[in-house]
């Protein structure tokens, strides 16, 4: 018996009115795999993420997490089943400090639910877990900075910190390095590799360097359909992909 794929997308479609944004996407991602989705703007990458994470309901098809159907469930239930996601635009709790942001992310795994009878400040386990995450994301020295005052790159790190705080099995990262400088991107890649160790990762990214560095496999999404799936080498060599997406863009050979 082989274990079911960590994430299984089956014939998934989504229409907004007459516009079919996602059209019959099927994809299996094995436990521990790092899978990247690339594609031109408007290919439906973010829509696919919203379908998987429960923000949208699919028009057709289904999504399975460790063999259990999650499509049709509300986002918070999907999250509790072990799937967490980040956002393309920093989506943090702006009026809280960095520490409080991450602490909100760990509440659920601490078994605290909607508790109104315990003092969160006195919860040592929650503090320890929070600082473990902060330390892993390089944010512990900024723990008490209001999140809204963080520099952009740190906000992106916080975005990832909140995403991994709930100790998910499957992590979806939506363009984690968007808008970062080269050195910031390099740091972010290191952080992502470290933070998602042993987890299943699905990542949308535009930066080819990041993708060829991180991903075990790559899927190319064009007009809501998967054009090709394969290892970075296979995708690199695929003529169809080059034509449809990569175009003349020189691939960073040194990163291959």
């Amino acid at each position, binding site marked *: 018996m082989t274990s079911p794929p960590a994430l299984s997308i089956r014939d998934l479609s989504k229409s907004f009115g007459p516009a079919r944004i996602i059209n019959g996407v099927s994809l299996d991602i094995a436990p521990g795999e790092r899978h990247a989705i690339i594609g031109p703007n408007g290919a439906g990458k973010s829509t696919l993420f919203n379908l998987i*994470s*429960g*923000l949208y309901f699919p028009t057709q098809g289904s999504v399975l997490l460790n063999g259990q159907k999650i499509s049709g469930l*509300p*986002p*918070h239930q999907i*999250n*509790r089943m072990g799937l*967490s*996601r980040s*956002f393309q635009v920093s*989506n*943090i*709790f*702006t*009026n*809280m400090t960095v*520490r*409080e942001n991450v*602490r*909100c*992310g760990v*509440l*659920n795994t601490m078994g*605290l*639910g*909607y*508790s*109104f*009878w*315990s*003092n*969160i*400040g006195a919860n040592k386990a929650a*503090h*320890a877990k*929070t*600082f*473990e995450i902060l*330390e*892993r994301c390089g944010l*512990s020295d900024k*723990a*008490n900075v209001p999140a809204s005052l963080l520099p952009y790159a740190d906000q992106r790190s916080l975005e990832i910190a*909140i*995403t991994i*705080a*709930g100790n998910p099995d499957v992590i979806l990262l939506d363009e984690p390095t968007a808008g970062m400088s080269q050195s910031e991107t390099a740091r972010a890649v290191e952080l992502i590799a470290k933070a998602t160790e042993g987890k299943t990762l699905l990542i949308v990214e535009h930066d080819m360097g990041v993708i060829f560095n991180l991903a075990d496999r790559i899927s190319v999404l064009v007009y809501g359909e998967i054009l090709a799936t394969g290892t970075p080498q296979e995708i690199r060599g695929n003529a169809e992909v080059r034509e449809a997406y990569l175009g003349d863009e020189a691939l960073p050979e040194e990163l291959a």
Partner: protein
Amino acid sequence: MSTTQESFDYSAHIPSNAEKFRQRTLPLLIFAAILVAIPLTGPSRTVYTLMHQMGINIVLALSYNMLLGRAGLLSFGHAVYFGFGGYFAMHAMNWIADGSGIWADFPVFLLPVLGFGAGALAGAVIGWPSCRRAGTTFAMISLGVAELIASGAFMFDSFFGGEQGISGDRMNGPELFGLTLGPISQVYWFIAFWTVVGVVGMYAFTRTPLGKLSEATRDNPQRVQFIGYNPQRVRYLVFIFSGGFAGLAGAMAAVNYEIFTPDAFSLVPSGFILIMAYVGGITYFVGPIFGAILLTYMQSMMSDFTDAWLLYLGVLFISIVMFAPRGLAGIVFGFSAGLRGPRPRAFLITWLTQLAGVALMLIGLIVLVEIAVRWSNGYGEVFAPFGLPLAQANPLSWLLVVAPAIAGVALSRRAARMREAQA
């Protein structure tokens, strides 16, 4: 790798016990100590009456801020939960007076517990449909519900008592702490006790996971879903607690006034609660306490001085919304932060310039309003501050409107330029 991370010493990054005591416990102890000390000054009956109203309004404004400040829910109908708590306490007071069954052993002193239950129950029923959405939808539903209950209160006489309401007598049932609750000085201890319980309870709520999730839901309901929580459920639970504390304040009012009328449900008290919380400062926990104290004082004292006090209240509210959105608490904490800042002298000068500007504008406004009110009343009454008669036909009157106003605006602009230069 994981062992070094788990043993990371985070104690430097979280508030120490000494800091927690100084910033959290100590202010509450001081607040309680002030309440204990007040009777030692031998307050008059008027002062007692005023302070009881303040205590009730402090709990009420704080309960409202659980929604507006902490959960980002703008409600126009918070008096509904106050009203249900108060009415239920009124009925219970009469059951105690009848003394049948368990009511024979129920002390009036504990009525706020029942008020909390009634307010929370009202919150649980009304919040079920209304907490599905935040924002405009929530605000509109709260307005609709408030109108509905306010008009319904005049229809169901057996519970609401019609126009004359329900009245009772608090001097019945078993005594607690040796308090008969007869004389006003004894009612004071009842009010003080429940004010402290309300303040401490609502502060403690902000420290719980649900309290934190409430702030998270206010900031970003979408992200709350992706940390495994349902924002609708967070709002709903907070709404129930908020209703409960409003009901607690209602029961305090029931014992204090021994009467509740359907007017308690109307939009006027709901609006007043909103103004108290906002003027005090909704981003601070203590904000609504400041607001409740100031506005209760204005409500009972300023109406003795001027017919136009509601107009001044409106001007205060609009000014706070436009120029000091963090409210009185924001002004107070901003002032103390400025004095501890890098250039306290420059800050103080700017601040005093601004204060003088505001004071001058206020003089212009007061002269204008007071002359206008008397003119409009048509009794031939003349506004005479400090014995100086200022009739509407007197050019000096209008000079005293225009000159301070212009000077005040000029000083305020100067203060604004000084702030810019310092920034």
